[in-house]
């Protein structure tokens, strides 16, 4: 069998394999999607504020993943803010921090899609407990809202201690007191602990804070938790409860709804140790609204049950922080495919095989216009410095290293200049691949010296065209999600590449190059 036929069979085999894998995965996803009782919810935060100065910080608490809930999609839309990386702290919760690039009004919308299941589908990630006495002390001290040392609190605690029945736990007693003996009031009822204890009436937040204060007064570490009760679509649906450190575990108590020890599966913690889910520094006129809506049934977070080894093949179970990076990495083969098509079918020549793909990759996270501007400026300055450098007659490796250093300098300087003129819309400056750029400058210079500047420009144009096409592919978010959900799509990619590798037809440019040969014989 000749190798061309083998290649066709290999490609067909890969397509078959890809189809089988996709089919299996689709079936598993569909089955788990139909799991009864599972619900998908969308939580939306909207925040408006005035930044008092440039650099003002906004911090956004993000719904935590629990054994029953998992955030499977998140979008943060904002203007004039620069996102700092998502931070994950097991001691508190996940937090997204953003900085305002300028003074003045800003708006922010954050959307989180959450998959809730009555069964414990995901590995329980318990909140981390403080390991040292100092860390414990942080959950014992008094604050403005938790007046541990207030006489009213001390007095209430003393009374609770006195009528503590034998063999009962003081925390249980405090919980019973907050849940039953303090009357529930709506949001108009007092939030603060002292009024709650005096008037025996408080809002849900007031009751939760009272419990924290009493626990802390009894030298039991406790904290307030803000979260969502995903029951029905509602406006401003924040609930508050208390977490008490018992032994080495945080145990939830919800005086408002009467749950102790465990919360219903549809309660989702958002922030621990505080009540505001959006906060910041140097902000004024902060307005926050939250809403919860149920999403129609569709693919949720975790399709495969955890624990089974084949869950390893499900990338969507990975923490959200990794999703974006992995999606882009998974798109890279498609960029290579674009390059291969341009090489073998179109016949466009570029500087370096994967230079366009890597350039495109560096543009993905940033604004392409400023990226292109940076690229042009750095290339021009780099070429200028390279031709000045030519007079020094340096050996190759030191010379390339000088060019690399200059490229690094030009890139950082350009980023700084763009920022100075406020031309970097998202403050996500393009960090171009410096080594690639250095080699491009060197090759451009040599090609224009040895062949002709026109040929060098032709190669550069080819690089930019192929790079632009790679960029279009890498930026294709819906394809990124598809590849992320079904990574076996790359069986098809390899199949196409195998076929391309055996493509022996003319390149498009050859139809022009050999045009003289198509005429009548001489």
């Amino acid at each position, binding site marked *: 069998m000749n190798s061309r036929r083998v290649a066709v069979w290999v490609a067909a085999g890969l397509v078959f394999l890809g189809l089988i894998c996709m089919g299996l995965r689709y079936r598993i996803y569909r089955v788990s999607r139909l799991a009864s009782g599972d619900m998908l919810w969308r939580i939306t935060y909207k925040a408006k504020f005035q930044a008092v100065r440039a650099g003002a910080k906004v911090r956004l608490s993000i719904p935590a993943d629990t054994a029953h809930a998992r955030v499977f999609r998140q979008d943060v839309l904002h203007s004039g803010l620069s996102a700092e990386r998502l931070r994950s702290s097991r001691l508190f919760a996940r937090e997204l921090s953003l900085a305002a690039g300028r003074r003045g009004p800003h708006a922010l919308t954050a959307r989180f899609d959450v998959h809730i299941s009555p069964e414990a589908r995901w590995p329980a990630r318990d909140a981390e407990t403080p390991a040292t006495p100092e860390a414990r002390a942080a959950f014992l001290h008094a604050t403005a809202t938790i007046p541990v040392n207030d006489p009213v609190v001390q007095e209430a605690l003393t009374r609770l201690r006195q009528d503590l029945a034998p063999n009962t736990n003081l925390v249980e007693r405090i919980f019973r007191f907050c849940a039953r003996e303090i009357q529930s009031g709506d949001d108009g009822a007092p939030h603060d602990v002292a009024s709650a204890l005096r008037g025996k009436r408080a809002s849900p937040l007031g009751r939760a804070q009272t419990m924290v204060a009493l626990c802390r007064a009894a030298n039991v570490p406790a904290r307030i938790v803000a979260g969502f009760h995903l029951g029905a679509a509602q406006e401003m649906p924040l609930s508050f409860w208390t977490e008490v450190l018992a032994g080495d575990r945080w145990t939830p108590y919800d005086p408002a709804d009467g749950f102790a020890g465990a919360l219903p599966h549809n309660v989702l913690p958002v922030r621990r140790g505080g009540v505001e889910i959006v906060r910041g520094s140097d902000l004024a006129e902060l307005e926050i609204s939250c809403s919860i809506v149920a999403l129609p049934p569709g693919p949720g977070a975790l399709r495969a049950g955890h624990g089974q080894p084949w869950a390893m093949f499900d990338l969507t179970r990975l923490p959200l922080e990794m999703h974006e990076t992995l999606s882009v990495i998974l798109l890279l083969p498609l960029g290579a495919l674009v390059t291969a098509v341009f090489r073998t079918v179109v016949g466009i020549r570029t500087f370096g095989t994967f230079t366009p793909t890597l350039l495109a990759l560096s543009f993905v996270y940033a604004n392409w216009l400023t990226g292109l501007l940076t690229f042009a400026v750095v290339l021009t300055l780099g070429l200028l410095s390279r031709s000045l450098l030519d007079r020094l007659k340096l050996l190759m490796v030191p010379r390339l290293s000088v060019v690399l250093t200059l490229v690094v300098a030009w890139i950082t300087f350009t980023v700084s200049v763009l920022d100075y003129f406020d031309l970097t819309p998202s403050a996500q400056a393009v960090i171009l691949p410096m080594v690639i750029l250095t080699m491009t400058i060197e090759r451009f210079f040599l090609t224009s010296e040895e*062949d002709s500047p026109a040929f060098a420009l032709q190669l550069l144009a080819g690089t930019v065209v192929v790079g632009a096409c790679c960029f279009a592919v890498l930026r294709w978010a819906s394809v990124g999600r598809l590849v992320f959900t079904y990574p076996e799509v790359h069986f098809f990619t390899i199949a196409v590449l195998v076929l391309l590798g055996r493509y*022996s*037809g003319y390149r498009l440019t*050859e139809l*022009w190059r*050999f045009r*003289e*040969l*198509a005429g009548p014989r*001489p």
Partner: protein
Amino acid sequence: MDLNVASWLSWVRPRALRRRGVLGLNERNAGFVLPGNPRAHYPRVDDKLLTKRLCEDHGIPVPQTYAVIERVGDIRGFQELVRTRLDFVIKPAKGAEGRGIVVVLEHNHTTYTTAGNVPLTLADLRYHLETTLSGLFSLGGQPDRAIIERRLVRHPIFERVAVNGTPDIRVLLYRAVPVMAMVRLPTRASRGRANLHQGAVAAGLHLGTGGTFGGVCHDRAASVHPDTGASIAGLEVPGWRELLLAAVKLADVLEMDYLGVDFVLDAELGPVVLEANARPGLAIQIANRRGLLPRLRFVEAAARGPLPLARRLELAAALAEMD
């Protein structure tokens, strides 16, 4: 480059090229280079020193090597190495596309005049040797060696059709049978180099006689040299049979199925092998105004096993009459 709109619009249909048996780059790679040229034999053509040694061992004429500079330390002795030579050529051992070649026509031990009548100082040449050793001109940028060898003198037959340089003759062989040949004539535009995409003129050569017919410049038919106006058709390459024999022998030695061999016609020595190429370009088809495929298929059918040298030259002559 020719940039008028009409020429850009004159694309042809693949079927038209297929009918004329034009070989494309993809088919060259997938059908001939990959299966026919074993990777392990590439150093034999990529390293010109190795090619030269193989040629010398098998009695194939190559320009005499004066010296080889292998280490940066050797550069110090360069002036002494060339003291007794009137003229010479410096060449990177692994250079590609004629890069890094310096032809010195004359010198007075301090100033060296190159082919373009550019005077270079000793320091200039030392720097050139250093960059050569550091791999600037080599394939893949690997460290390299510099060869100092005899300068070949242009044969008088090319007096009026080569400007600022020496023409070279490319013979394309498949399974050690010559299938097509051309001569590349440097022009002012190509700056004395014989590279077609830089503006050199190419003329097809008749495989049986070594006579030139119409040429091509910048991918367009040309019958006269653009600088001198002399006709490039009807020239007869002297020593054509020896040239073909040398090419065929070299193909046997290198064990490459699909091979380009470049010759220079020296006024004194006749055809001398300059280098061999494992991925010879396709412009030879434009120069000959013929597609390669029918000839390659013919050889494929005729040369299944090893053939005697004379039989292969007969096949080549038969190919010339094929179309």
